[in-house]
């Protein structure tokens, strides 16, 4: 795996109208692309995150595919609740032997793009597309959603998988001692509040979903998104991406700020 420096997206803003016009244009592109039924393919997409962590802990989120074929490039976003977790800069890890880029909008979305180089063969088999590390900053149910993954084959055919997967991590507030310990015996370990494993849950987070690969039904979410500019960032991200893929998710994440 190769670690990818993070860039902060601060540059451009799109007007809402412009974004929608773009989205409408993309819809047909997605539909056309998927009709070709060509190269790149994956059997399944999984999103994994730890079941629970404490505030202050690292949260490692992994987006992976199985059964990949001719996977030359891809683009994905991980939407997160910026009130509960913060993305750790430069933490995105992607497969070796390629170029990658990660951009965090600081407000709930990290976008990762990866491509193989030159005439190198596409990735095959089980591939971890991205591993992102967050820091838990507040207690709550922290969702990590991958609204879309766009796959590109060596022949430049694209395939967009929507609602690609999600995972949730329960973040627990750390019990803060209210008074100084009075015992003279020092603690034997660094802290008592580190429930690393929560035996009551068995990895409930890997809600793997295969993408549909179709751009159907995008009009509704888009229209509603357009009507409600003030929706929370994650909500807007999901709604847009459902219809038109990660690209607009990138833009919307920026434009919504």
């Amino acid at each position, binding site marked *: 795996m190769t670690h990818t420096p993070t860039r902060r997206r601060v540059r451009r803003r799109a007007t809402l109208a412009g974004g929608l016009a773009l989205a409408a244009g993309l819809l047909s592109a997605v539909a056309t692309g998927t009709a070709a039924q060509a190269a790149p393919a994956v059997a399944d997409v999984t999103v994994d995150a730890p079941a629970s962590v404490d505030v202050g802990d690292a949260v490692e989120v992994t987006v992976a595919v199985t059964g990949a074929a001719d996977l030359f490039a891809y683009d994905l976003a991980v939407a997160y609740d910026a009130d509960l977790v913060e993305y750790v800069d430069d933490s995105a890890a992607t497969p070796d032997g390629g170029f990658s880029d990660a951009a965090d909008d600081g407000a709930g979305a990290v976008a990762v793009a990866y491509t193989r180089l030159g005439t190198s063969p596409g990735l095959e088999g089980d591939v971890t597309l991205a591993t992102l590390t967050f820091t838990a900053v507040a207690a709550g149910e922290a969702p990590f959603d991958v609204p879309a993954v766009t796959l590109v084959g060596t022949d*430049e055919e694209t395939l967009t998988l929507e609602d690609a997967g999600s995972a949730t991590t329960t973040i627990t507030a750390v019990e803060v001692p209210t008074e100084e310990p009075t015992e003279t015996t020092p603690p034997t370990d660094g802290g008592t509040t580190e429930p690393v494993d929560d035996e009551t849950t068995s990895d409930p987070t890997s809600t793997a979903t295969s993408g549909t690969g179709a751009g159907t039904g995008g009009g509704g979410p888009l229209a509603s998104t357009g009507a409600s500019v003030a929706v929370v960032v994650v909500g807007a991200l999901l709604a847009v991406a459902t219809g038109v893929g990660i690209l607009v998710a990138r833009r919307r994440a920026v434009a919504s700020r």
Partner: protein
Amino acid sequence: MSTQPAPTAPGTTHHPRKDRPVTLTHRRAAGGVAALTLTGLAVGLAAAPTAVGAPEAPTASAFLAPYYTALDLTGDQQVTTDDLAVVAEGLGLTADDEGWKDVALADTDGDGVLTVADLAAVSQRIVYDDGPFELVEASVVDMQAAMNAGVTTSVEITQEYLDRIAAYDRTLVDTGAGGRPLASIITTSDVALDAAKQADAVRAEQGMTSMLLGVPVTVKDNYDTKDMPTTGGCGCWDDNQTSTDAAMVGGLRADGAVLLAKASLDEFAFGFESQFSSYQAAGSATFVASPYATSRTAGGSSGGTGAAISANLAGIGFGTDTGGSIRVPSSYNQLVGVRPTVGLASRDGIIPLALSQDTGGPMTRSVTDAAVALDAVVGVDPADPVTSRQEGEVPASYTQYLDADALDGARIGYVPSMIGTNRTTTRLWAETRATLESLGATVVEVTPPTSYSTVLPNGFASVLSEGSGSTNEFKHDLDEYVANHLAPEVEARTLSGIVDSGRYVPARRSTYVSRGAITEATYQAWAGPEGTHTKVLAEGKTLVTQMLDGADLDALVYPSGNPYGTIGTNLRLSPNTGLPAVSVPMGQATAADATITGAGVNLELLGRDFAEGPLLGLAFALEQATQARTSPALYGPLG
């Protein structure tokens, strides 16, 4: 210099847009294709992004323009991960956004938005491949991509070619009736691995500085090399270790090529069946074999280059051609051969045969390789004054013409009498003609003039019937080489001295004696300023150029040969006009042809002065459609 959208990947079947502009430095774009979009280009360039990342542009020339350069965003004439970073930064931008102009070039699918598909498309213009690398049939692009990815190195490639030479060249691989060793190599370099190591160091420090960086090259043993003797195929010159390189070899080294070996040839580049006496006892000589059928000749006189390149004993080959010596072995060995315009590449430091017609040029497994190789060897050289003709006629890179659509709209002429009657050749021509037409070319039957002038009384026929300059010029030109280049250790310094040495191909004796008797007066009457040959060549060029112009042709085509044989006087057209020719495989003889099953036959494309670029483009389009070359099965990967 220019770039344009969506050109074609050399060696791929990618289909570019039709409107490909070309950097045009010669006086006439052949036909409609090349010249089509110069106007559009200027407009496009005005809007095109300039350097985004304030690049420190290397001075290296464009690599495989335009395919590998057209999507350069950082101004260094190639696509690297720096360009990908620019694209990644712009992901999501639309045509309405500020900053779009900086990345618009990367919107390869033209949908007005920068997506990961565009990122992938730009990435594919990087010369890089981390997949498995197989040396057999590898092109220069394959080698560069694998070396750039660290999959292999120049040292490894060079060693593998040396291993293949050791394993295959003098070994009886073909155990069938009449099977012979190839005998395609006379000398291998002791310092090739050092040069390869140096090339690897350059790559590590500076990246791919040239498309030839670290690529092992074999030149015919009549090109001077300061690290290997130059025998001309003659035992009489075994000791000719020159102190300098031929000008063309210098060009190859300057581009980082590794001079691997010297290829065998017909002694002093005379004939079409390569036989040489270098490093053999007096009275002995060896024939060079075709790797497809070792009982057959590899052709000549550049037969060693032909056999070696075809059998994958080196990456790139160079031969010389006075009357067919590049094109014959190219046809016999299913290679691309370029006989350049006389004056495109300096002959200084090449053992001459007849300077009125001598040329040096590449012999390669693909048109792309030929274009890359040709780029390295062009240039004006005061030591070969005829090269001054090329001023303003040479493009920045011949690779810019490699367009799979180059035949679309082209006009291709042929003279029926040059097709001949051989069953294989006529069948392949019929198939090729259909292919040319299917690719959008118009194939035109040309009726050549039957009279022209007192110099060419029978018009076109007079051009084709003019003999080779070798009879009357060899002694004169060889004397100049001896005076300027031959190592002082060599004792045989005249034709009579060569005969006296006894160290030559035995059957050659009478020819050396007769050519040694040519007087200066005879030479002048033939090749002097007012010589008969001089006039025929000059008027021949005019006549054939008028034929091309009259029918608005991009090229005149004809078979370079028949299966393991020549065809009429076809081979004389290029040398007797000085016009360039590119020879490219058409296919092979089948059993049904009842000729020589498996034998290759090339199509030759002849064009105007310095039209190598357009010719290579047409040949590339044909090659991409036919993929006619086969690899000789006897010389596969080493076990």
